[in-house]
């Protein structure tokens, strides 16, 4: 199948967004998906795991090969591969197709989220469980946003002049009110409330109880002071310059607030983060291998 995907412009199963062809493909894929799921339900239980393990292995194997298989250097898309170059070029050319599949699969996760919300809150509403009124508000809000958003998108697609406010109709105003006027404002309000908790947490937790906490507090103080442009300007530029007389080679320049902050970032914070990232990378590699080879007990 991957041979079919080895195109340089558009994968053969893809079509231009919004075209009739893409709608046809979507329908065929939907039917094929349902048939596949239905077929899987008839597969004996003992065979299911090998199928899932095999599919997982094949999906991961492509990227492993893409990473490890030697590829011709500076190979132009219009060139024809020769001899052993075929596999490397074939793998590279298949990337857009495989990438489209992963984009689609990831996008389906959004659909899965929507399905989950509908199922959970729909059940709550139908069975009139506790706080069903909140579920009703949530579902009405979601359906309103989806409907208005989609109509607005369709109208804009066919009439891009509607971008200008002078040409707005009901759905553009409604979307503006719902998205910018309400959703975005509430989003910002929720996030800004963190500032209050940070302030109180700093007050309660930043206490000098040990040497370690003293070092942490001193470092945090330097970083916080250096974030304030005015303080840094006054301490690094005015005070230090008055001592050094503007001589860039003067030893005291090392004690300017911005230099101390840069030293902390470069020699303390940076290596610490690198060490963490290194550890996380090794862990991710190990976890990736376990998932790819279906060694995780819950993976299949």
């Amino acid at each position: 199948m991957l041979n079919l995907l080895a195109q340089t412009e558009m994968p053969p199963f893809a079509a231009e967004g919004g075209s009739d062809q893409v709608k046809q493909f979507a329908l065929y894929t939907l039917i094929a998906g349902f048939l596949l799921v239905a077929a899987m339900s008839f597969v004996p239980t003992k065979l299911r795991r090998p199928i899932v393990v095999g599919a997982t292995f094949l999906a991961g194997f492509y990227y492993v090969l893409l990473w490890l298989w030697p590829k011709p250097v500076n190979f132009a898309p219009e060139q024809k591969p020769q001899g052993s170059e075929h596999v490397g070029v074939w793998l590279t050319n298949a990337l857009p197709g495989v990438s489209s599949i992963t984009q689609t699969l990831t996008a389906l996760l959004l659909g899965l989220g929507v399905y989950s919300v509908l199922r959970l809150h729909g059940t709550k509403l139908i069975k009139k469980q506790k706080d069903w009124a909140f579920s009703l508000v949530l579902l009405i809000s979601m359906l309103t946003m989806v409907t208005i958003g989609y109509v607005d998108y369709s109208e804009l697609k066919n009439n891009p002049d509607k971008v200008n406010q002078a040409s707005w109709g009901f759905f553009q105003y409604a979307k503006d009110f719902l998205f910018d006027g309400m959703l975005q404002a509430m989003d910002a309000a929720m996030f800004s409330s963190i500032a209050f908790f940070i302030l109180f947490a700093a007050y309660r937790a930043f206490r000098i109880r040990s040497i370690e906490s003293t070092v942490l507090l001193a470092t945090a103080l330097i970083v916080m002071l250096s974030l304030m442009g005015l303080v840094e300007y006054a301490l690094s530029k005015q005070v230090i310059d008055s001592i050094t007389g503007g001589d860039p080679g003067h030893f005291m320049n090392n004690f300017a607030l911005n230099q101390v902050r840069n030293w902390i970032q470069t020699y303390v914070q940076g290596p610490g983060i690198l060490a963490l990232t290194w550890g996380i990378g090794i862990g991710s590699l190990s976890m990736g291998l376990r998932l790819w080879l279906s060694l995780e007990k819950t993976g299949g």
Partner: protein
Amino acid sequence: MEKLLNINRYAMYLLLCVVVTIPFFLPPSATVIPTLTNPNTQDLYINMMQIPEGSTVIIESDWTVSTRGESAGQLEAFLKICRHRNLKFVLLSGADPQAPQVALNTVKRLNAQFKDAGLPEFKPWDDYLAVGLFPDPAAFWQTVSANIRTSFAGKTAYDPAAGQRRSVYESPVLKNIKTNKDLGMVVIITASASLDTMVQRMSGKGTKLAPMVTGVMAPEAMVYYASGQVVGLSNGLRGVVELETMMARGVNYSADSKEPFVKAPQFPGKIEPLPEGLKPLDRGMSYFASLHAALILMILAVVLGNIGLLYQNRKGKS
């Protein structure tokens, strides 16, 4: 003194609310704060101002209004540079379904400013393409580095001259882009770890990467700057203010014979300030006084708490 250990949380919340809000009622000229620029922001700005005029850049905008204070200023600053250097851009998102609309709103807001200033607006199709959300940015960036002519396969946009939707590859924005090396720069404005994904797929592939991140993400992003995998870095609100300072005052530049305000020893040339039409350059600066007030309050709270603790410890010993 023991009261210092038990300040009412609601009193602190109210105080924070008041001190953060006051600067918004002051005139903009009263909240202009002189700010030194750091080498990472200098490098970012210098590289941005050296993108060849008329080039195409990709902007991955991965923020929503929850980080507007930092990210909006970053996107606005770069879009103003795009206007100044006549850069074309592809706008996309890889982290949040809300992000594409938020970025388009920023373009719309800036277009209104440009119109008032008599500058040309960003026109869809001719000047920019909004290609929406890529749910799997890792796969997307991998195709960009392998063959950019397939990365936007299937994406269409409305061509006003033709009166119909056409492949984005036919637009002036992407028409001449054959490989990722033809891109002037790839800019990412993010409030999450999406920079990691981009650097892992695009670093060392011949395209300049320019991250603009929130303060929370800055320590992680700094590692990429130190290693040379990105050309510069704008960190949080402070980074926005530094960019605006350089946009307003230039780099190694002085209108009279005075010493330049922004001195970048690593850059031999000089960059003039942006023209008057692109001003005001105060999106970040308008929030900066509030950040100062909040940080001062936080430092005071920590100091008061520790004075109370010290007093309690001494009292306990005696």
